[in-house]
């Protein structure tokens, strides 16, 4: 019986694995190349990224993550804000390995608490794009739209039991 539980635990641990590969970040509040350059240089100081490619016209940045590194989405946001601007959209490319997600429920993925909103209950496999819908990761109007879809306290505080919870959608 113990062995069976161990096996189940192992299965759960393995099945909930995922890897964050890259992110596409759109910044808001700017039109000039000088402003874009400030964000670009600011993002490049983060230790968990390998490269940043920027599209000045759309104020977008493709950020590639180091394999196996601890990815901190709040740090990405902070770097954009330090440069004097805001995050309009943050989409993360993650490689899922049979992760079961349910609407309005949290799941631990790659050491991060992800709380899925506005999704169908499903099994995630392979490369998927998730969008972070936490406060200051999207325009205030859109944040309010998602706030109407959940009663989770963590959506307001960003935390559950002292652990950072990222609220995401697909």
């Amino acid at each position, binding site marked *: 019986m113990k062995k069976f539980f161990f096996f189940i635990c192992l299965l759960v641990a393995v099945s909930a694995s995922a890897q964050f590969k890259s992110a596409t970040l759109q910044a*808001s509040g700017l039109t*000039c190349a000088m402003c874009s350059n400030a964000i*670009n*240089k600011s993002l490049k*100081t983060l230790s968990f990224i390998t490269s940043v490619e920027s599209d000045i016209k759309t104020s977008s940045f493709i950020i590639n993550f180091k394999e196996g590194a601890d990815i901190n989405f709040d740090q990405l946001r902070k770097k954009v804000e*330090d440069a*004097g*601007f805001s995050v309009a959209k943050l989409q993360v490319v993650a490689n899922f390995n049979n992760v079961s997600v349910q609407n309005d429920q949290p799941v631990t993925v790659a050491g991060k608490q992800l709380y899925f909103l506005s999704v169908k209950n499903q099994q995630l496999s392979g490369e998927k794009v998730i969008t972070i819908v936490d406060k200051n990761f999207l325009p205030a109007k859109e944040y309010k739209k998602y706030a109407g879809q959940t009663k989770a306290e963590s959506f307001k505080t960003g935390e559950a039991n002292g652990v950072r919870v990222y609220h995401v959608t697909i």
Partner: protein
Amino acid sequence: MASLFSNDMYRFLFVSSLLLICSIANGQELYIFSNPASNIPAKTIVAKAGMKTMRSYHNNEREYRFMPELQLGLTKNWMLTGGVSFSNMFFQSKQQFESARLYTKYRFYSNDEVHKHFRAAVYASGAWSNNPLVYQELNLEGDNSGVQLGVVATQLVNKFAASAGVAYVRQLEKADKLDLGIPFSNQALQYNLSMGYLLFPHKYENYKQTNLNLYCEFLAQQSTDIKAGFIDIAPAIQLIFNSSTRFNVGARYQLTGDAHRMAERSVFISLEHYFLNALK
């Protein structure tokens, strides 16, 4: 010559400023004669060298002021600027140190959307100058010892940027006054309306492209203790190299006014470089 200048030149400036107001293009807010509500990025140092030149009315000689300045981005909302000035203005025969200035600005409101923002900031400035109080025009760029308190709002909509601000300035020189029989002004309100326009590049591809920006600012001052004031128009062009070095050339022309000033026209040239992530 003077009347030719005032008619044709002003008509040209008036039309070009109207064009600026009406144009829907990439707006820029890195103004030459005023500060926008936005700050320099956090952890950034900006080194700036400025030069102002004018023909002084009292002896018709060209005078120069040099203004080295350092700006620090302390946090995303708060910046600090320190500068000194050297000039041969105020009846000096050669260049000499004349003033030191501290300036700080805090951005207290931001509403960002993609290619759009509305921001507001408050700023305060204090200056010490060894020049005597002579003119009714007050400024803390070298002329006067004094303090200044201001608020500025910048709106960028559909790639067009405009900025409006008002400031209170008070001069603090008590003893060293040159009495020309004209009443001294101790305090004034200053106003600005500033607009920017990106001329080049039409299409952004990389950070190496040189940007060419056109600016038009209206700068006004009205004394609150005596009846003296002016309104200037200040067209300027700006080149930005490598998305980190700015070269600015601008001129100020008095449109209307009755204040006693050193000159009604001046030229300002500056070069500034951004050291991003320079502070820990």
